[in-house]
């Protein structure tokens, strides 16, 4: 129970503190914006980033690929036809308070035939994991939720790759849409983390194969996009910070934070730069994870641009990520740019295909309850003892769960 009379004064203090913080940040931002607008020399920027690399200064900002960074790139023409395949996933985490230990991943795929009246396709793939091989690590400990998330992410990209490959014969551009960043790495708390990372990269290679096959057979293209809604990244701000330093200041201690720009994110800069439909320049995020992707193959390094998917009255920013094999072909950039923006207009600021993939994937609370009941029935059928934890039982009572509460006509 939340006692609002105790929270309200804290909320009021929070509002005042954030407003004061924003005033200070806005003043700093105005200076930085003026500086950003003057950054037109790509060679100078690349030289400075190279200097940071040589000094191992730990620069984690954005490196421009091959376009001037202080200008916007207009919305290209939308292709007449295209196949858009979106993937998303959800999960049920292992729960020691239910009758049996298991976890479930559910991946939803939504196929939208852009420019056609054809009925979109939908595919779901639920997978139930219940053996120790999947549930426990090498020390016999129950895996954590991060491990489930990592496996689900790999399953999403694998299914996206599989469904894209199956549609490689369609003679239109293909856009594979994934929800969230494309860079994937796991911590040490995830069992077989390195294997998962390799499987993820394998799925990316599979998508690249789809592109190669479509190019060879149809002179068409297949792109992979990671869509990040309302990004809070500060990659461009970090670049501005780097460029404002003197040469002799380019060292790790100066790049640990963005100093007076610390706390400022890219979004307000991009709102100043980009009109609805426009994208930013292409950037490569400088990070050890992305370097590992690059080291696996130059085609797999992750590149991104910002895109204003909002309207004149209501700006909305997305970060659109793609592998280098997409980024180095301008026509593929244009197709991705136009289609992502078009999808966002169907759904008012978010890609329609991703919304539907999410809807297909999500496991709702009542479905989780039904699955638990199914498992209990199956256990009983197999003469297994079914026990619930006291914690779960008391929760059900406290929350007043009503399973069959309905009446005629509502």
């Amino acid at each position, binding site marked *: 129970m939340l006692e609002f009379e105790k929270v309200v004064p804290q909320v009021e203090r929070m509002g005042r503190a954030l407003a004061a913080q924003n005033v200070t940040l806005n003043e700093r931002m105005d200076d930085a914006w003026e500086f950003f607008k003057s950054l037109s020399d790509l060679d100078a920027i690349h030289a400075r980033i190279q200097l940071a690399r040589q000094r191992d200064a730990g620069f984690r900002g954005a490196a421009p690929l091959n376009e001037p960074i202080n200008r916007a790139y207009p919305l290209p023409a939308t292709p007449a036809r295209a196949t858009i395949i979106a993937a998303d996933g959800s999960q049920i985490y292992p729960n020691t308070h239910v009758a049996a230990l298991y976890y479930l991943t559910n991946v939803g795929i939504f196929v*939208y*035939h*852009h420019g*056609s*009246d*054809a*009925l*979109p396709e*939908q595919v779901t793939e639920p997978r139930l994991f219940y053996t120790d091989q999947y549930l426990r690590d090498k020390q016999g400990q129950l895996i954590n939720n991060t491990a489930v998330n990592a496996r689900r992410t790999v399953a999403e990209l694998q299914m996206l790759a599989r469904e894209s490959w199956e549609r490689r014969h369609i003679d239109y551009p293909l856009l594979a849409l994934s929800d969230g960043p494309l860079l994937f790495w796991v911590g040490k708390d995830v069992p077989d983390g390195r294997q998962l990372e390799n499987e993820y990269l394998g799925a990316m290679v599979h998508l690249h194969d789809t592109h190669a096959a479509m190019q060879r057979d149809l002179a068409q293209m297949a792109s992979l996009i990671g869509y990040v809604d309302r990004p809070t990244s500060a990659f461009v701000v970090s670049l501005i910070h780097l460029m404002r330093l003197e040469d002799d200041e380019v060292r790790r201690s100066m790049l640990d934070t963005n100093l007076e720009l610390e706390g400022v994110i890219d979004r307000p800069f991009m709102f100043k730069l980009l009109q609805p439909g426009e994208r930013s320049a292409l950037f490569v995020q400088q990070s050890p994870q992305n370097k590992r992707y690059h080291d696996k193959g130059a085609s797999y390094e992750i590149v991104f641009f910002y895109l204003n998917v909002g309207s004149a009255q209501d700006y909305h920013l997305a970060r659109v990520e793609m592998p280098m094999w997409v980024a180095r072909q301008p026509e593929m950039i244009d197709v991705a740019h136009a289609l992502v923006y078009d999808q966002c*207009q*169907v*759904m*008012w600021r978010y890609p*329609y295909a991703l*919304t*539907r993939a999410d*809807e297909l994937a999500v496991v709702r609370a009542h479905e989780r309850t039904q699955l638990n009941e199914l498992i209990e029935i199956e256990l009983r059928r197999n003469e297994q003892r079914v026990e619930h934890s006291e914690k779960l039982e008391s929760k059900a009572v406290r929350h007043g769960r009503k399973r069959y509460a*309905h*009446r*005629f*006509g*509502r």
Partner: protein
Amino acid sequence: MNETAQQPVIGSVLRASTVGFVCGTRSQEIIHPSFGAFVRTRHGQSADFDVIGVIYAISIDDDPLVRQLIMANNLPHAAARDQRENRMVPVEISVLNVGFIQDNVIYHNLPPRPPLSLDQVCLCDQHTVVHFTRQLDFLRLILNTGDVPTEQLLAAALLQAASARPRNERYAFLVDAGRRLAGMLSHDLPRLQHLLQLIRPA
């Protein structure tokens, strides 16, 4: 009265009581049901009777995704088809029970038990409608029901029952129904007048 197999299925029972039931269907399948239409449940093997009812409301539930699509105001036909044909957004059809059929005999009373969840619901064929409405006892059942638009429902049901009859019998049927209503609503002349206006033969 066994022609129901040919009649279009309009949905399946979602929830029910002896007074009425709600059946659900997908939004692209609401071509057939209409307000005031007579429907019957097609019972499973365990039930020994079919419930006869009259549709008194057809509603489509609120849906956050549809709201957003409306806000965007830029809906391609493929997305509209997706919403109507792929998504599990049920249309709810509310039905008032007015009788039941057991062993091919029609009863103008509430059924002894409600239909079961997922029982199929189909429109009554013309023969059943004519047969059921030979007696007009169901009029009182509708008149005495709250929470439904009584006059509109009675008028729609009577007009549907009239149109199920041969053209030369329709006038007499409606006049007879008007007389019955006059007997039932003698204490409420404005309501009676409104109802008679609604069912006045063309």
